[in-house]
């Protein structure tokens, strides 16, 4: 059991299976975030991580029945978009990029 849930039967198994998939996805996105190799790769990985957190919060709202998680997911979907835009601007304005170089 990954998530303690009020649900029973089929839905409990489905929630746990989806949570297992999401945890695996978190690990792979985090690996890409760490190994890079370029700055845009890391921005893409961060974007995916934000999307994964939104999905996980939605899943958590379903599993626990607490509606506040959905508010958090809504806020994070907006803030994550702003973060992606800011990072894209940062990549755009960084002069003389050397792809593959460690930053």
């Amino acid at each position, binding site marked *: 059991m990954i998530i303690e849930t009020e649900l029973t039967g*089929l*839905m409990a*198994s*489905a*929630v746990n*299976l*989806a*949570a*297992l*998939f*999401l945890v*695996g*996805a*978190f*690990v*792979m*996105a985090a*690996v*890409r975030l760490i190994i890079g190799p*370029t*700055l*845009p*790769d890391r*921005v*893409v*990985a961060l*974007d*995916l991580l934000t*999307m*994964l957190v*939104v*999905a996980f919060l*939605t*899943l958590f*709202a*379903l599993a626990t*029945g607490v*509606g506040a998680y*959905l*508010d958090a*997911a*809504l806020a994070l*979907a*907006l803030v*994550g*978009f702003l973060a*992606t*835009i800011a*990072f*894209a*601007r940062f*990549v*755009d304005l*960084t002069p003389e*990029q050397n*792809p*593959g170089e460690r930053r």
Partner: protein
Amino acid sequence: MSGVLELLAAISLVLGGALTFIAALGVLRMPDVYIRMHASTKAGTLGVLLIALALVLMGADAGVVSKAIAVFAFVLLTAPIGAHLIARAAWRGGQRPWQWRPRTDTDVEPSGRP
């Protein structure tokens, strides 16, 4: 009737989880930044859609359902714009799309760098 809805919600949950897993797998394994963002944006968006759809199918009250729809609408609106901006920045930064070529002994890692 609720049994059918529950079955549909369970199916969409598992499919959504699998799609987000595939998105992350693509981001980890694909050879260059453009192909990676293609995997993360499309599969990731559909994964979030399916998980939000499960919440809509199981939804008890209108507040939860409308918030789930809003979550999905925001992700659907913002993911392509973000991917486009990163792609433009990467292109201007000098990255060129990866092209397949036969592996030779000197290849360490296939890359699309100029």
